[in-house]
């Protein structure tokens, strides 16, 4: 059994006087796909933002490779990729410029690789069109192009399938499986009923979060 990448111990988070989850414990193992489930407002997005480090209104412990995460900010951030609800792209820039800016802080890549990633997500021919003129689905694909380039072992993907057509969803599912096979850990929230073989689940919204 290899060592868990990310471990949560007795996580508790309150938002606007509402207890989202309490003594929630789980560990994210490398090479697994985990889905965070729960009805609307059960704190799925908040949990992902807590794990990513965007939201620091929580209590409990979070361990990265066995060590408390707080002490290893740079190592943790370098090894974690977070895709939130908002695509994280500038409407005035073109997909290529956006992708270059997003990857610039993480790993130096040639334009050739960026263009291939954009083509991989179905944006062939749109690389130099300002994102303002692209549809919501296409803007989302610019953000998803990072998945084809990312070398981070831990992926936190919030609502990864929104605005993606059926054929795209299928392709992304196989991508997540392939990533897990490579040894990466993927944490996903989605309303689309994701059924992947050997998928772990974290269910929120029950009396207390538990892992089954």
């Amino acid at each position, binding site marked *: 059994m*290899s060592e868990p990448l990310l471990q949560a111990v007795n996580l508790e988070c309150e938002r606007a006087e509402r207890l989202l989850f309490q003594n929630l414990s789980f560990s994210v193992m490398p*090479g697994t796909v985990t889905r965070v489930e729960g009805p609307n407002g059960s704190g799925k997005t908040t949990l992902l933002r807590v794990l990513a*480090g965007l939201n620091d209104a929580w209590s409990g412990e979070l361990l990265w490779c066995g060590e408390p995460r707080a002490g290893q900010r740079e*190592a943790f951030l370098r090894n974690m990729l*977070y895709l939130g609800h908002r695509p994280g792209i500038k409407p005035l820039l073109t997909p290529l*410029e956006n992708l270059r800016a997003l990857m610039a*802080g993480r790993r130096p890549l040639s334009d050739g690789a960026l263009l291939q990633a954009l083509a991989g997500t179905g944006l062939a021919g749109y690389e130099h069109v*300002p994102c303002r003129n692209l549809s919501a689905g296409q803007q989302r694909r610019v953000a998803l192009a990072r998945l084809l380039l990312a070398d981070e072992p831990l992926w936190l993907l919030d609502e990864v399938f929104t605005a993606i057509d059926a054929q795209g969803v299928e392709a992304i599912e196989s991508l997540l499986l392939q990533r897990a096979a490579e040894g990466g850990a993927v944490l996903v929230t989605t309303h689309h009923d994701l059924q992947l073989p050997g998928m772990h689940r974290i269910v929120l919204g029950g009396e207390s979060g538990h892992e089954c």
Partner: protein
Amino acid sequence: MNADARPGLRPIDSAVGSARAMASVFARDVRVAFRQRQDLLNPLLFFVMVVTLFPLGVSPEVAFLKQSGAGILWVAALLSVLLSLDHLFRHDFDDGTLEQLVLQPQPLFLLVLAKTVAHWVLTGLPLVLLAPVLGLMVHLDGNSIAILCLTLLIGTPVLSLIGAIGAALTLGLRSAGVLLSLLIIPLYIPVLIFGTGTVAAAAEGAPVAGYVALMGAFLVLALTLAPFAAAAALRISLSNS
């Protein structure tokens, strides 16, 4: 996938250097700003309009304008910077780019410093370049205009840096614009006093080295402390959004 997961990927330790990341943040902000050049001109137009109000409102007499010209230009520059602070973080906050910025491995205060320098280059610097023309319009003589531009050159970065803290704090709040002004204007007062004071001293022929050195001290203080405060403020704003 068997029950126990495969050996994990070796965590990566090499991240892009801070300088490169800062350069890329700076380049992206400048590129975005030049895609919408009109937004760059608006603070300048506002600057000229505010300066024009004083002669109309008070009096166009040369004596009055010569004596209070520096003060007029400084207040106008301060208000223009304040006006343009609003979209320092707000556009990135709306389209999710700010989240990705906070999650970059490099220290956040350096990235915030890069963004603030980009903001200064796009708004503060043009104000300094336009100041001489307006200096002529308020009948300032050559020497005062030179000193005025020097104080603006040192002062506007301080305005941008302190303003960045305010912009980060009021991110995502309801009436962010007004709140930003209420928070920041008191902090601008020392810079304003020394900015105009330097020009007044120069007008009377007194040596200005002391004043300029003090403004330099403000700049160094702002350069070192403001990014930390702005980074912390960003984290707070993002965490309760």
